[in-house]
């Protein structure tokens, strides 16, 4: 309960900050940050459980986004409804991929998710009359239309994104203490023992995979209207998948706040890099990459772990609050 309040307060604070923030640039950075955190949070629901790294999560963003936008543009279906169908689409895909890959471990799982995404990507590219092919689809609008998720003021998307982030975080926090949460914990610590305790391990894993995909897709639906444009390489390419994974792991897979910290860290570096080297290419990419390397080398279990260690150094009290 206390946590729920904190999360809610944090959201209010973030929202207020977003609204008061005069600077559009930071508004857009914060929005991107919120979406990335949301996706990393959803990613972590699956990968935090299995300890495996999925490099295919962007595909759930893409499927939901494409379904929603295509329905919207070609059949005039409101994104609020189309979004649901889009999410459903992602979930169906997830159930297939999940059922197929849940036996795989470590690199095998990573490569499997990676190539599953590649398959979808090339399908999107191929059915170009529907998906616009490599040129993708653009959503252009002039006036507000909330039910079509069209807001001329980007602050609106910031509010929605942070709202979703808070909601998902709350949901995961609640999940931890629900039946499913207990099952997840049991499976995480020993699949054999979990099964012996009557937990249907395979089923739970698939459910978690679908849940993770659904939450990811949720973000995707709103995001595509925020960015107003989508093409295959951008939405379902490896880059986004990698970003999502990096953020979650750098933040700390064992912590509810990990993905959020990770997103802040990631965007902060990007902002700093662009501020200093924005006029010359390469630097931002280089700094991001090497920052991750340094991060992993200093504390493989992520920023949260690092912070806690630092706090321990300062005063003895272990901060297990967010675990």
């Amino acid at each position, binding site marked *: 309960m206390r946590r729920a309040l904190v999360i809610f307060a944090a959201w209010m604070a973030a929202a207020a900050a977003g609204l008061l923030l005069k600077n559009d640039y930071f508004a857009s950075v914060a929005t991107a940050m919120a979406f990335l955190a949301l996706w990393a949070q959803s990613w972590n629901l699956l990968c935090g459980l299995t300890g495996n790294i999925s490099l295919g999560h962007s595909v759930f963003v893409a499927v939901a986004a494409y379904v929603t936008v295509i329905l919207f543009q070609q059949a005039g279906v409101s994104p609020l409804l189309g979004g649901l169908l889009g999410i459903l689409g992602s979930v169906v895909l997830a159930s297939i991929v999940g059922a197929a890959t849940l036996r795989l471990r*470590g690199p095998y799982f990573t*490569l499997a998710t990676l190539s599953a995404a590649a398959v979808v990507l090339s399908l999107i590219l*191929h059915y170009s009359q529907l998906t616009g092919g490599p040129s993708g689809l653009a959503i252009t609008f002039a006036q507000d239309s909330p039910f079509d998720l069209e807001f001329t003021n980007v602050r609106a998307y910031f509010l929605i994104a942070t709202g979703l982030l808070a909601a998902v975080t709350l949901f995961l926090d609640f999940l931890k203490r629900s039946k499913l949460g207990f099952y997840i914990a049991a499976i995480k610590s020993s699949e054999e023992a979990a099964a012996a305790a009557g937990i249907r391990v395979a089923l739970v894993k698939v459910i978690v995979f679908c849940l993770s995909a659904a939450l990811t897709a949720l973000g995707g639906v709103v995001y595509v209207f925020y960015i107003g444009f989508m093409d295959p390489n951008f939405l379902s390419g490896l880059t986004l998948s*990698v970003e999502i994974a990096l953020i979650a*792991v750098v933040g700390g897979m064992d912590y509810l706040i990990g993905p959020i910290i990770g997103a802040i860290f990631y965007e902060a570096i990007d902002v700093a890099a662009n501020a200093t080297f924005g006029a010359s290419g390469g630097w931002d*990419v*280089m700094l*991001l990459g090497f920052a991750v390397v340094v991060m*992993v080398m200093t504390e*493989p279990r992520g920023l949260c772990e690092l912070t806690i260690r630092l706090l321990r150094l300062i005063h003895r009290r272990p901060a297990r609050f967010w675990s």
Partner: protein
Amino acid sequence: MIIFLQSILNGLLIGGVYALVAMGLNLMFGVMKLVNFAHGEFLMAGMYVAVGLASLGTLPGAFGMFGIYWVAIPTMFVMAAVGLAFYLLLLDRAARFGESPQILLTIGLSIGAQGLAQVLRGSGFKLVPNPINGAAIRFGGLNLQLGPAIAFIVALAATIVMAWVLRATRFGKSARAVAESAETAEMLGIDARRVYIVSTSIAIGLVGLAAALLIPYQYTFPNVGQNFVVVAFLAIVIAGLGNVVGAVFGGLLMGVMQSLTASYFDLDLSTAAIYLLFLAVLLLRPQGLFTRGRRTL
């Protein structure tokens, strides 16, 4: 028919390079259980090294059009040294981490290296003019591009050497022992860490060799590694993760499949097909197509 044979030939030729890259990947995975997502960037680095050397000049006329290939051996050794540094600076410590941090580490390195390359050498496309580029031998209606052909031959030679090293040499056997069980190997007195170090150097050295073989006919630029390493990943999984010699067949198979599908179908669907096959192997035969029983390396 001739077209078909030509496609097979083309596939085998490009497959040779994939094989070199894949072999290194699998050596590292087999011994250290580490998937090196930065492998492509080592190829990229190797290509910049090779281009740098080649621009110093090529060997005199005696070597005819092959003068540019003198860079192969130096590049290989430079990259082997890079591999050594890679192990000592990062992997040595990262070996203690779980799989996830390791994957993350190499991904981060891969991204960072691409950035670094652009910062240092710019984003331009570099290709030292040389007679190999575009030269070909023709026989019976088939034509054989010289650059890829040489790459293929060297790759094959390197494979044979590697196979021999793994089967016959003390290091090779130790490496296989470590690959199977580092604990058992150590209790028998094998210094697993030394095996790791040497394997990493060899793996990166092989990538260096591949790089040197590519520069006569492929452009060098910061993202070039990705173009090759993705296929190499497919190759090692299809061959069986950790199976070094099998990786070569994986590489050749990928080359041929690419070539055939590309000359007979639309490429974007053929990509889907290849990845589906990849998934099928991953799910139905995780040990790979070219791996019998529990053999390692």
